[in-house]
């Protein structure tokens, strides 16, 4: 099979980018999208030209490195998968495919299809953790966690931090990412003591980094490779309201035996 690719090329953050057209020949249907790009790049390198820069590592949909907007959709046409899990059999022979980077104010372009997503890490550093020292943890079965609760926490924790949700959002909001992270920890008893601080600090960091606000359009859920549900955004909003109540000194709903240490 063969394809025509229109790929965004941009030498550096300050330079202007543009689409460049490449032809991909002899593409097998068993090839992944990234392997197809690899083979285009091999051709460029052999000619002494700079290959198209793009990110990837695990190629199994779990590290969150790969990040391409394919035909206008982050991670391409299929739901619930990352760019690296996309196979060429998905595209008809002869198709024209456009490939662009994530576009968001908080994700400046480094080169071609590579963007800087450290803003997501800075949100995590603001409070996306449980302050538990190494050593001295109690036995893992001391606090029982119901299967449903553990599964819901796991649903949220599946987020691979790729940023597709941001790329898909008109406001470039990181709400789904933050919602996933906040919910994961807020659902578990171990995460409860710091929940008030956590939700506030992470949302403040999100604003600081230049992400927009949530417009309730839910494009994020549609492109999320882990199908993180927008229900977690509702949960995030509840956590935030609850944090306001706690701060104001009014009694929040009691949650023994793991009530907050405030």
């Amino acid at each position: 099979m063969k394809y025509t690719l229109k790929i965004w090329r941009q030498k550096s953050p300050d330079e202007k980018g543009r689409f460049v057209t490449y032809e991909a020949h002899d593409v097998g249907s068993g090839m992944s999208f990234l392997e197809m790009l690899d083979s285009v790049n091999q051709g460029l390198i052999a000619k002494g030209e700079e290959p198209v820069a793009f990110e990837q590592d695990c190629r199994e949909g779990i590290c969150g490195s790969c990040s391409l907007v394919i035909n206008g959709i982050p991670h391409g046409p299929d739901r619930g998968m990352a760019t690296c899990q996309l196979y060429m059999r998905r595209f008809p022979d002869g198709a024209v495919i456009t490939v662009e980077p994530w576009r968001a104010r908080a994700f400046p372009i480094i080169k071609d299809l590579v963007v800087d997503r450290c803003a997501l890490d800075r949100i995590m550093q603001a409070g996306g953790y449980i302050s538990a020292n190494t050593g001295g943890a109690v036995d893992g079965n001391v606090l029982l966690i119901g299967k449903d609760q553990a599964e819901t926490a796991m649903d949220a924790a599946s987020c691979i931090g790729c940023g597709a949700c941001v790329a898909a959002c008109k406001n470039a909001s990181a709400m789904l990412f933050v919602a996933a992270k906040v919910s994961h920890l807020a659902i578990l008893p171990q995460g409860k003591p710091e929940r008030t601080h956590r939700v506030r600090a992470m949302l403040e960091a999100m604003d600081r980094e230049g992400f927009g606000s949530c417009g309730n359009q839910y494009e994020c859920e549609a492109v999320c490779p882990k199908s993180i549900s927008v229900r977690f955004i509702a949960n995030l909003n509840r956590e935030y309201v609850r944090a306001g109540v706690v701060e104001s000194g009014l009694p929040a709903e009691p949650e023994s035996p793991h009530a907050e240490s405030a």
Partner: protein
Amino acid sequence: MMKLDPKIPVGPLETKWDRHRFSEKLVSPNNKRRITVIVVGTGLAGASAASTLGQLGYQVECFCFQDSPRRAHSIAAQGGINAAKNYQDDGDSVARLFYDTIKGGDFRSREANVYRLAQVSAQIIDQCVALGVPFAREYGGQLANRSFGGVQVSRTFYCRGQTGQQLLLGAYSALCWQIERGQVTMHPRTEMLDLIVIDGQARGIVVRDLVTGRVSIQTAHAVVLATGGYSNVYYLSTNASGSNVTATYRAWKQGAAFANPCFMQIHPTAIPPGDEHQAKLTLMSESLRNDGRLWVPKMAADHRPPGDIPAEERDYFLERRYPRFGNLAPRDIASRAVKTVCDEGHGVGPGGQGVYLDFADVIERQGQDVVHERYGNLFDMYNRITGEDAYHVPMRIYPAPHYTMGGLWVDYNLMSAVPGLFVIGEANFADHGANRLGASSLMQGLADGYFILPYTIGHYLATAKLLPVGENHKESRAALQRVTGRISRLLNAKGRRTAASFHREVGKFLWDHCGMSRNKAGLELALRSIPALREEFWRNVAVPGSGEAFNQELEYAGRVADYLEFAELLCHDAVHREESCGAHFREEHQTADGEPTRDDTCFAHVAAWEYREHAVPILHKEPLAFEFVQPTTRSYQ
């Protein structure tokens, strides 16, 4: 001349670690603030070590080449993590986990290290739970377990098929906390390219900022490498494409010893290779072997669809050869059995490189829903890659390079042959002998990082004489020169072949001659051929672009250059080891029915290699004494 003292504490096995910890010197809290430790790597080993060292009060400079520490290769681990919790009351204990690991490693690891690993395993689970790792739970709220290849108890903790991800996110969140507190400075997108050794002590590294291309010097009081394994030397492996040998290889050239490089785990259940453009092999978790049955047609070159082959014409070869463990036989044994049936012409799928992994029986017994709940994400993954529906046709699988038991030599304190250079996680050689059991690498990475290194490094820092050093020290400058020299050589070769084409070639060579089974003639052929390929690489590699900018091809070419040297070391080690043990199968050393024969008289040692410029590396042997277990023939029949 290098001297390798494993520094194993004397006395009873059960109390070695406790007594050792007590006898170790501590660094006073005030002094910790003045001590800088470099941690290279943010996988399970690196992230847990960096966060714990930060928590203890050291200043930590932490590096990874990905854009975020949470993308380290550990994220991809699927199946689970072992711990001797005995929550199932099925007879598990520290002693049993110890014994399983020693035996699984085919009696080529140190008793003391492995015992300590088993001892701290339980604590790891507690620590992870405290950090919010959402392990699978039973309805009653207790932690759930599953069983995993090569053992008969159920001691594996898991988070669906994403255990590595969740453990890494836990360690990463601990790291985030220490970054927020200012104890750890994180340097993502920064690659270590050399080690700085001053007065015989590891005192820093040379790094390249992968965005700007700037090369700089980082000095410290000690250096910890947690840079993972080197399976990608085979080109195709289950590892993330960025995993590489550069950090450990460059440290080797600066005086660390490389131990057992030929102990290379080939995982039995990966999706078989397709066309030549394939960039990686995808692992299908070992947990599938709990319910799936491996078989091939009894008749060679039988091209009927699997459904048309009646039961009596199928060879369930693992169940036949290893009735006691059946489909759960350890990885090395299962991989070789797959290779044998394929070499005999029974393989299925393109090129006859594959065997069936069939779920029909369990689906009939327990229903598709149960299988979906257990393995749904793996079946989806398989479907995406192959376009086939494994609920209805059996999966096809074939072995793939997966994990490296070999690595930099370390003593009981996890310190390498260079004082002040510590090596943890998959990057060291310590705990898995000649074969690693499933779910025990995550355990080892976190044991090293959370619970072992933070103690042992303290003793070194409290007792070593560490003079102030800086960027302008002549050894620092020399290391910087080495790095910039290599970069310009790569950029100036201006040849016609891509780095990937060399990588593929050396990988294929190793796979053919130093893969699942090896013989002297093949290894010697490889040793004769690799230098020529390397020579061509430096003459004819094409690396476009500049060194002072983001340049992925330059990064990659540098790693391939190291593979082209390292491949030789791998073969030297495989030639020297005239026995078959664990994953290392020498065709000359097998029984009449194809079982490996180990030689405890001549090879019960760790082979630690010392670098020599332009010469064959020097072999040092660390004898392995078995005081507490009796090496037996590892029988899974």
